[in-house]
């Protein structure tokens, strides 16, 4: 057993780890439940298995096939999106959907049915998965696609790694003719401003998202910057796609955990103020390489360490259009009041394209992501309040970014969970799953294994 944490560094659990190497091998036999674990970029406990074993998929990182004519790529589930970009971009293809970090695996993208800045156009990652192989602890192997074993396909997309091990998957990439994005930045004064800019931007822009100044109050509540963009057209023959995978990151790294006093109301205010005023004075529209456009935080290696040893809690919810205005106001007001303000607050509109995944998080409405330095009881109470507001608004909270949601909330957010439960592999479980389904605990003794925060 060794102590492990996730990207949010909270909670910490004691768990075993076993490395997977070959996709044709049988699953290792171990005592207790197992859970596939890729690059560990989930924030809360959905990628942890306290008291059990995680199956490390980093060794399942081989490419199987790529057709540059059709943009269909087949690869093992431990292949990172970064690897796919290095393969695809020089040949004129891009990920159909990408989250804000490229350091996630294809298996993780399926298990969490990730979304990106183009949800209104492309839906979730799961929509672009053509098929995959699912290995169960009983030794069975299933080919899953929308046509073949469609129920297993629907259960596994967004299924949090609980239905078995995805050994390989086939994904349809999307064509690009330029690795640069034409980006426009539009400041907005408040929430209504955001909704207006969002509505008028969606028709003409593939990629949209907003940064929100979560310290602005009163009439400026919800002010921020709206980013929208499209891949640039073919006009840069002198910048061949072949060289475009070069990282444009700054190469900064956070070498150590920053001490707690670096993050306080004053420093976060200063950061938010400077960011807002610096960004809005940059020229717009401008050309931005895809790397800083999609992955601004990847260039600061280990950025999660700015929160210190106690880590942080992410909170991402979606609220439906009907209740969005009041709910977002309340969420922003509460988060500004209730302790340390969120460093990075992101607003985005989700479209109505359905995912094939039964347990997929995105649904029509607005999604808000906030992060909070972990200050113990106070922070947890705040996040539980936000959870309650979301539930009352008829929304949902994203399991990949959650460490606190209640079992009641989970049940309300994921109405298909009972249908889904029948497809969980009996040998698979996670700290998250046991937390939100206390009744289904296979090993009651596991609950005590969570390591307390020093």
């Amino acid at each position, binding site marked *: 057993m060794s102590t492990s944490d996730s990207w949010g560094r909270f909670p910490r659990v004691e768990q075993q780890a076993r490395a997977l190497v*070959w996709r044709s091998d049988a699953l290792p036999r171990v005592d207790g439940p197992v859970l596939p674990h890729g690059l560990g970029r989930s924030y809360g406990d959905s990628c942890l298995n306290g008291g059990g074993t995680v199956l490390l998929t980093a060794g399942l990182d*081989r*490419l199987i096939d790529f057709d540059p004519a059709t943009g269909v790529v087949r690869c093992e589930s431990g292949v990172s999106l970064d690897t796919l970009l290095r393969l695809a971009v020089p040949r004129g293809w891009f990920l159909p959907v990408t989250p804000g970090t490229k350091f996630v695996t294809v298996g993780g993208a399926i298990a969490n049915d990730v979304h990106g800045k183009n949800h209104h156009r492309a839906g979730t990652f799961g929509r672009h998965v053509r098929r995959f192989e699912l290995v169960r602890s009983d030794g069975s192997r299933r080919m899953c696609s929308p046509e073949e074993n469609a129920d297993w396909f629907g259960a596994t997309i967004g299924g949090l790694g609980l239905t078995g091990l995805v050994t390989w998957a086939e994904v349809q990439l999307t064509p690009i003719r330029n690795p640069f994005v034409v980006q426009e930045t539009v400041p907005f004064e408040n929430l209504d401003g955001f909704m207006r800019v969002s509505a008028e931007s969606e028709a003409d822009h593939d990629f949209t998202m907003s940064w929100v100044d979560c310290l602005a109050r009163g009439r400026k509540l919800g002010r921020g910057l709206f980013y929208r963009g499209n891949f640039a057209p073919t006009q840069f023959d002198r910048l061949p796609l072949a060289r475009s995978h070069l990282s444009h990151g700054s190469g900064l790294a956070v070498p150590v955990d920053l001490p707690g006093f670096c993050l306080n109301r004053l420093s976060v205010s200063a950061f938010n103020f400077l960011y807002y005023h610096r960004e809005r004075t940059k020229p717009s529209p401008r050309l931005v390489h895809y790397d800083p456009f999609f992955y601004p935080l990847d260039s600061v290696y280990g950025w999660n360490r700015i929160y210190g040893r106690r880590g942080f809690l992410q909170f991402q919810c979606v609220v439906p259009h009907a209740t969005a205005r009041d709910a977002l106001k309340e969420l922003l007001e509460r988060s500004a009041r209730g302790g340390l303000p969120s460093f990075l607050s992101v607003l985005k509109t989700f479209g109505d394209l359905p995912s094939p995944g039964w347990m997929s998080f995105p649904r029509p409405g607005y999604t808000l992501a906030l992060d909070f330095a972990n200050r113990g009881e106070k922070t947890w109470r705040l996040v539980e309040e936000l959870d309650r507001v979301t539930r009352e608004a008829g929304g949902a909270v994203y399991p990949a970014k959650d460490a606190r949601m209640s079992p009641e909330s989970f049940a309300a957010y994921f109405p298909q969970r009972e249908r889904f439960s029948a497809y969980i592999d009996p040998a698979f479980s996670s700290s998250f799953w046991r937390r939100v389904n206390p009744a289904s605990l296979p090993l009651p003794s596991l609950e005590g294994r969570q390591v307390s925060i020093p």
Partner: protein
Amino acid sequence: MKKVIVLGATSAIAQATVRLLAARGAALYLVGRNAANLEAVARDATTRGAPKVEFRALDLNDCEAHASLVERAWQALGELDGAVLAHGVLGDQAESQRSWAATELVLRTNFLSAASLLTELANRFEAQKAGTLVVISSVAGDRGRQSNYVYGASKGALTVFLQGLRNRLAKSGVAVVTVKPGFVDTPMTAHVPKNKLFASPEQVARGLLKAADGRKNEVYVPGFWALIMLIIRSIPEPVFKRLKL
């Protein structure tokens, strides 16, 4: 190296090397024991840009098969200008001390089979007066230690064999590159607790190819092992035999 045979191609270091070679556009002939795993490595190499990848499943301890193996590889790729020998076993020192069979298996895999393959490859490379032989030995071959002297002896013998081969082939323009990794984080060392001395297979592969490109003689990867092994080799035997290394 443009047409390369990789022996032990499913080992972690070999896989990382195959990826780098594939990205450079090298044609590859991969040899390993498990056909399904070899095919996975071969498809990965093809997808990453290798123009031609062939593979053959074979237990390399079967030295009788080496001549025909090299002949087939030669035919498959037209000719060869590079070879990477990466197969090997760590063995279990305690088991080797109890059993000659276990000791023999380590010596056969790490030394005898390599010597047999190198004999075939060296004669062909010598005849064509070109080629690069890259062989993975180990820092463990630099000095025998009680904790793993059977493995160390197999790699030490390999290192000396390569020294002689290099001496012989120098006049033919054939490079013989001995790569001595330290601890590497691979399935071979999965049971060993990791520390800062451990390198990744990718790190070792980059060092290996850099040495091959530079036609180096003996290299330690990562380089700091040169210093560590200098110290370990310098300890006088009367002192050394009392140490618990």
